[in-house]
C-alpha cells in the first residue's frame, strides 16, 4: 500500500470510543524509515545509567535508533554524549560495549579524541599537505543535540530541539523514583547482561508491557509451574506470584503526554517481592503511599525506547529497532546498593526465571511477536482491534489513585484485574502520529 498520512494509520476517534491501529505500522519498511527519522532521531532516548560509567574516562556505547552513540565521563566527572563515528572516514571510534580510556584512538587511520570529544591527534598531520579549508574545519566528535540525566538515568537526543528533560519526563519521574528509591543507598545495575533479538517490530515489545491481557494465554505454561512452586516443587529459589490470586486485584493505566504511559496492578502477595524485605525502611524514607506503589506491579513506557518495569523486580528494558521486523532487547536488573547476597540471589533468580530469553515469559512473548509479524502479511486485515479494553470506564485526567500521589495523566482507567485494560497503548500511538506528522510537514518535533 502506498504511504498514507500518519493520521490514517491510527484510527483515533475518542468521542466514538474508537481506537484502532493499522497493521502497516508494524510491518512497513517505509514507515520504519520515517520512524527512525521523525521519532528516534528527533526526541529524547534513554541511553544508560550513570553508574555504568562511574569513573573518570569511563565510556559506554549504545544506539539511538540506528545511530551509534558513545557516552563518556571526562576527567572532571562531567558526562558527554557523541555520535560514535570518526570524523575522518566514519568508523566507530569506540568499538567495545564499555571501557575506560584517556584517549579514543580510531583503529582505521589513528585519529584520536579525548573524552570531551576533542580531536587530539590527526596522524601525520604535519606532512599531509592539507589545504587551508581542512585546517579551518572542526575535527571533533559530533556531540549529541542534548544530554541530561535524572536520578542516574542518562538520556540523549540527536536533535537539540527537544523540551528540557525534566519537562519531557513529566510524571514518569514518579515511576523512575519508585525504582531508584528502593535502596537506602541508591540502586545499581547488577553485573551481567542478556541481549536478544526477536522477529517483530519494536512497538510489539513496547505494547506488550502495557498488555496484561496476554499473560494467562501466552504464558499459560507458567500456570503449571506456579502450581508446582506453590507445592514447594521445582525452582523454589525463584518465588513467583500466585497466578490465581493475581487475578483478584485491581488494575489501572494512565496516558501521559509525549507518548509515555504506564500500567499498574496491585499485588496479592507483596511478601514475594524482594522489596518487601526492606519495606519498613523504605516507608521511613518515602512514606507509606509511595512504598505501597513500589510493591504494585508497574510497567511504565518512556517513549520511544525504554520500559521502566517492576513485575517482580525492578528492571530497565531498552528496545533497539533493527528493521521493521527485527528488534534487539536488553535489560538491566536493578538492586539496592549494599543489598545482602541472599536477597540479591533471590532477585536474580526471579528475574532469570521469568524475564530471561530462556525463562518462562520472554520466549513466549517473542514467539507470539513473530507470529504477529507473519500475520501482518494478511492484507485483508487492516485495522487491528487490540486497543479498547477498559475504554468504557476511562476517565479524563487523574483518577483517585493518581491524585493521591500527585500524578496528572491525560486519561485514567482502572478496574478488576481481568478487565486487562489496553489504554496503555494509546499514548505511544498518539505521540507516534504527532511526531510523524510534524516530520512529514517539515515542522519541528516540539513547538
Amino acid at each position, binding site marked *: 500500500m502506498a504511504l498514507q498520512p500518519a493520521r490514517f494509520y491510527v484510527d483515533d476517534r475518542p468521542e466514538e470510543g474508537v481506537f484502532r491501529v493499522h497493521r502497516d505500522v508494524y510491518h512497513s519498511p517505509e514507515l520504519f524509515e520515517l520512524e527512525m527519522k521523525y521519532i528516534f532521531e528527533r526526541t529524547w532516548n534513554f541511553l544508560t545509567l550513570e553508574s555504568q560509567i562511574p569513573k573518570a574516562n569511563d565510556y559506554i556505547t549504545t544506539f539511538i535508533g540506528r545511530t551509534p552513540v558513545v557516552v563518556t565521563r571526562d576527567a572532571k566527572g562531567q558526562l558527554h554524549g557523541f555520535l560514535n563515528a570518526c570524523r575522518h572516514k566514519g568508523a566507530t571510534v569506540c568499538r*567495545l*560495549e*564499555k*571501557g575506560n580510556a584517556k584517549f579514543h584512538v580510531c583503529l582505521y587511520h589513528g585519529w584520536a579524541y579525548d573524552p570531551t570529544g576533542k580531536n587530539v591527534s590527526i596522524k601525520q598531520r604535519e606532512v599531509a599537505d592539507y589545504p587551508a579549508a581542512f585546517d579551518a574545519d572542526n575535527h571533533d566528535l559530533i556531540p549529541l543535540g542534548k544530554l541530561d540525566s535524572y536520578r542516574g538515568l542518562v538520556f540523549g537526543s540527536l536533535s537539540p530541539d527537544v523540551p528540557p528533560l525534566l519537562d519531557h519526563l513529566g510524571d514518569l519521574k514518579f515511576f523512575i523514583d519508585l525504582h531508584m528509591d528502593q535502596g537506602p543507598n541508591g540502586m545499581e545495575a*547488577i*553485573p*551481567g*547482561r*542478556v*541481549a*536478544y*533479538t526477536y*522477529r517483530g517490530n519494536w512497538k510489539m515489545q513496547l505494547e506488550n508491557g502495557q498488555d496484561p491481557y496476554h499473560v494467562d494465554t*501466552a504464558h*499459560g*505454561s*507458567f*500456570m*503449571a*509451574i506456579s502450581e*508446582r512452586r506453590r507445592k514447594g*516443587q*521445582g*525452582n*523454589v*529459589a525463584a518465588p513467583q506470584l500466585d497466578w490465581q490470586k493475581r487475578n483478584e486485584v485491581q488494575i489501572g493505566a494512565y496516558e501521559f503526554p509525549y507518548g509515555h504511559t504506564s500500567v499498574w496492578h496491585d499485588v496479592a502477595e507483596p511478601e514475594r517481592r524482594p522489596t518487601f524485605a526492606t519495606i519498613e525502611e523504605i516507608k521511613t524514607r518515602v512514606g507509606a503511599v509511595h512504598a505501597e506503589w513500589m510493591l504494585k506491579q508497574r510497567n511504565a513506557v518512556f517513549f520511544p525506547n525504554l520500559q521502566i518495569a517492576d513485575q517482580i523486580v525492578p528492571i530497565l528494558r531498552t528496545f533497539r529497532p533493527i528493521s521493521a521486523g527485527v528488534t*534487539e532487547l536488553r535489560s538491566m*536488573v536493578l538492586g539496592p546498593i549494599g543489598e545482602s*547476597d*541472599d536477597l*540479591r*540471589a533471590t532477585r*536474580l*533468580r526471579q*528475574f*532469570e526465571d521469568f524475564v*530471561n*530469553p*530462556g525463562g*518462562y515469559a*520472554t*520466549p*513466549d512473548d*517473542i*514467539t*507470539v511477536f*513473530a*507470529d504477529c509479524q507473519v500475520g501482518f502479511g494478511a492484507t485483508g486485515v487492516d485495522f487491528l482491534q487490540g486497543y479498547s479494553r477498559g475504554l468504557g470506564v476511562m476517565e479524563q485526567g487523574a483518577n483517585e489513585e493518581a491524585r493521591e500521589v500527585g500524578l496528572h495523566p491525560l486519561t485514567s482507567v482502572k478496574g478488576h484485574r481481568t478487565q486487562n485494560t489496553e489504554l496503555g497503548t494509546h499514548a505511544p500511538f498518539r505521540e507516534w502520529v504527532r511526531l510523524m506528522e510534524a516530520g512529514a510537514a517539515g515542522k519541528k518535533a516540539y513547538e
Partner: protein
Amino acid sequence: MTTAVELIAAGTAVLSREAMYLDERRWDEWVALFPTDCEFWVPTYTSEGTLTKNPKTELSLMYFRGRGGLEDRVVRIRSGRAPAAIPLPRTTHIVSNILPLAPPEPTIVRLRSSWACHAYFPLMNENHTFFGRAEYELSLRDGQWLIAKKKTILENDRIPFPIDVYCL
C-alpha cells in the same frame, strides 16, 4: 581398581547420553542424569570478554541449585501451552574435545567439553547453531555416574531465538 582411562570413558559416556536424551526428547532420562542436589549454571558475559563469576551476585542466563529447576523446564515443554515450544525445535548436539579438568578420582570426574547445538525452528523455517563449552563435575552415586555440576558457556550470546535447556 578403575583406571583413569576408564573413569574418563565413563564420564564421556554421560556427556554423550545427555546430548542424545535432549535430541531424542527423552526428558525423563535426561533429568535422571542429574542428582536432586545438582547445580546447573549458564553464566552471562558482562561485556565482550568477561563472564560473570558468582551466580549469587551476578546475572546468569540460567541458574538452578537443585534438579527442580530442570524438572520445571520439562513440565513447561510438556504443558502444550508454551508458544515457544509449539512446535518444538529439532536439535542435534555435537559434543567434542572432552578432556579432564583434573585427574579423575574413583567417585568424581571433572571434564570439559566443546559443544554445538544445531537447532531448527520449524515455525520460522530457520536454523541456528548455539555453541560454547561446558565444565562438568560427574559424581558416582549408587553405581551411576550423574552430573553433579554443569557450567555451560554460551559463546554466541546475542540470542536470536527463544532458548531452552535443549538449545544448550
